[in-house]
């Protein structure tokens, strides 16, 4: 009797999991269709599509800039610049699948150009990283804050390409394939950059 109950629970659990996977697949399919249609409209010069592109992606680009080490004001300016560049280079956009990577590549170039113009100046990393108090005792909180601040500094001091790799994959949660496309390099190259970046971080943080 107990075995039967367990087996039924497992079946229900599996069915639920399959249902969730189907839903996720459908959501992804709908998103892809939306991107395809958006890309097609952008390529014909539709201004409402440009506005839709902003709504869909401005936060993602802003966060990307923040994680690359720019302060709030600069991140806003560079987000705007990214979209201006995107509109100027709409002819380079191939299809809906490429939309995300294309936008990240433009954002990456905008950020890199910014750093290059400020050659020699370190990324600003003055904002504190605060861990909420509810996480534990005051001592733990202070120590965790220090750890994260050290890590943030180490990420900010990485050479640009390595920093970009860390931000796209570990902080932006893109898959290797997506992140490599966003960086505009082959997957092998991207993996090698990631490894080197992790090695540097490990040395500096430890």
């Amino acid at each position: 009797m107990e075995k039967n109950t367990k087996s039924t629970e497992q079946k229900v659990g599996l069915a639920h999991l399959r249902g969730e996977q189907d839903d996720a697949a459908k959501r992804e399919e709908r998103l892809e269709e939306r991107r395809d249609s958006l890309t097609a409209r952008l390529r014909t010069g539709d201004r409402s599509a440009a506005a839709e592109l902003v709504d869909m992606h401005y936060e993602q680009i802003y966060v990307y800039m923040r994680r690359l080490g720019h302060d709030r004001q600069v991140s806003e300016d560079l987000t705007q610049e990214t979209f201006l560049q995107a509109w100027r280079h709409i002819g380079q956009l191939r299809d809906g699948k490429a939309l995300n990577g294309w936008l990240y590549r433009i954002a990456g170039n905008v950020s890199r150009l910014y750093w290059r113009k400020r050659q020699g100046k370190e990324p600003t990393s003055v904002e504190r990283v605060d861990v909420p108090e509810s996480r534990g005792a005051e001592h733990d909180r202070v120590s965790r804050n220090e750890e994260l601040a050290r890590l943030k500094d180490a990420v900010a001091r990485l050479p640009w390409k390595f920093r970009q790799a860390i931000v796209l994959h570990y902080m932006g949660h893109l898959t290797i394939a997506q992140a490599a496309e966003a960086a505009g390099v082959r997957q092998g190259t991207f993996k090698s950059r990631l490894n080197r970046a992790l090695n540097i971080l490990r040395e500096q943080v430890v």
Partner: protein
Amino acid sequence: MEEKLKESLNELAERTAGQARPGLAEDIKHRIPHKLVRHRGGLDTINIIIDLRVNKLTAAAVIIIAMILLAHFFSSRDTPGDSIFQDSKMLVQYILGTRVGGSDLLAVRSRYESLVEKGEQAVYYGDKADLKDGSAVLVQWRLADGQYKIISGDLQEKTVSAEELIKLQAEMLKKKIK
């Protein structure tokens, strides 16, 4: 150790991102050009220069000479010139790296913004050009007949041909190099 590092990066990602200012999307949308034009040339000269890590002044000189030769070669304003101009204006923006002040600059900037609002594809060099140089191009935009309107350093609006505009830009670069 590696897992801990990845976990920390994950936590750092959550803590450092923050949220974008609510009005940011609207600010960006206000800057959508009235006419979205495809970049026909396909060659992004600026990115090529950057990727090749060529000295920017050397690269600029080569490109300006090439543009002048091309303009002579096609001897018409409505040729592949569009993409060449897209690149040349970005190039000038990129190369002229100094910031100057000036009370008249606000007026020029406001004129530029009103042009953009009207849907003109105006380009603003005011934050990079030398205001003391009367012939410096501060703002440029293309007219329907293929000519260009410019606001120069002496704050006059002038209509110039594509070739004249290239020469003015080349002059700006020359002065900058000196």
